[in-house]
């Protein structure tokens, strides 16, 4: 069983967590006209890296979103950061 750490609740069983997306994507400004290519890239293009990854996960028990850094080969967890502070 893999243990992830919620920045608010502490270490918990992986079943309590849900992968949301890769970190660092920003939604294009849809108030302006955007090209099909840009919109498709936003929706569908992923880095899908082998090795060190930075991802947004949700701890479904408390509902909080946070930044999870881990290794996608060894599955080692490298750190959890609350988004509220990191976003400021």
């Amino acid at each position, binding site marked *: 069983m893999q243990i992830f750490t919620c920045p608010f609740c502490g270490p918990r069983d992986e079943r309590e967590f849900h992968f949301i997306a890769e970190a660092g994507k920003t939604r294009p400004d849809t108030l302006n006209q955007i090209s099909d290519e840009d919109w498709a890239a936003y*929706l569908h293009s*992923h880095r899908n*890296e082998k090795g060190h990854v930075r991802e947004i996960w949700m701890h479904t028990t408390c509902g909080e979103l946070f930044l999870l850094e881990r290794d996608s080969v060894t599955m080692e967890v490298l750190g959890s950061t609350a988004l509220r502070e990191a976003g400021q």
Partner: protein
Amino acid sequence: MKRYSAWQLFREGLRGGKGWGMAWRTPKPKKQYDVVIIGAGGHGLSTAYYLAKNHGITDIAVIEKGWLGGGNTGRNTTAIRSNYFYPESAQLYDLSVRLYEGLSKDLNYNVMFSQRGMMVLAHSEPEMEMAARQYNAMRLNGIDAEFLDAKEVRKRAPILNYRDDARYPIHGAVNQPRGGTGRHDAVAWGYARAADALGVDIIQNCEVTDFLMEGGRCVGVNTAFGEIRSGMVAATVAGHSSVIAGMAGFKLPIHSYALQAFVSEPYKPVLDTVVLSPAVGTYISQSDKGGLVFGGALDRVPSYGQRGNMPVQEAVIGGLLEFMPALSKVKLLRHWGGIVDVTPDSSPIIGPSGVDGLYLNCGWGTGGFKAIPAGGYLLAHRMATGQHHEISRPFDLDRFTTGRLIDESAASGIAH
């Protein structure tokens, strides 16, 4: 190529098998090829074979970082079927089933394609209505299908759970009689041997580490054995497609996940068809050796780890015991994982990559073993003629920009 036959088998039996020889060569890579294919899984090898056989392009190297067939092709549960929902998918996967039907003869290699049928169970009246919808879609797509009631399912698979107090009672099933299983290694080996005989160089233990780019065009690859130039490059690397795309400087609509499978110790025959229960998410067949081969859903953590996690193991095994409680004392022999390339619509990507000279045959995710003959056939057509075959056209990478997705994950609740 030395042809395999019953006579040869008999003769070699008497000679202690001394005359078989190697099934393919171990060539040194040349400096230049017409076509370089990255990845010697089923799709890479079949692409090479059909380029050579159907289009006369034989100056090809297939470059594999490990051993041929050592990726998902040698790790899958070998279910072959074309019971998809959308016409585009039905056309694609049925081309593959038809090619599989003639494959042992075509390759002169027994791929052990056994059309034992594939039953998808329905466990409630609403599920029976969805099953009827699936059955109708299949018939409209020109795919063989049977709509079975509980009595008929029981006749065909008496080992399922028919108790009155079953948590998932069996109401019926949709069956595809032409579906079944094959021998995964034999598919890789058969294509490798036949491609080799047509002049294709298969280079094993040689990782592709980078692309050679000139004026924005891909003109070859850098490998563990040095530079290899080529007119066209195809990437057939499944779970590593994003890594390859990263080398060429673009991103794909793909996430890589681990998919697990399990096999039990060999038992006497208890099941002579493939059974899937979408409600519990587990499917099972019995191999010719007697092993019960089963699997289920993807792990939920994106991964390149090539091994699985516990929550999904529990769900798959627990699910199996819901509809086959008789197996509760069966002992597992092995369990493993492969890294699969999952697209947003669970449909593959076949065709140009957007980088000149570089082509893709990937995104098969959890279900590309059944598609090995078609994937290679269609990519070879696209590369050799410069035009999509009408069957592969809808599966071009451009569908993610146009929005014309072929959402089989939503439509048919796909399993492998």
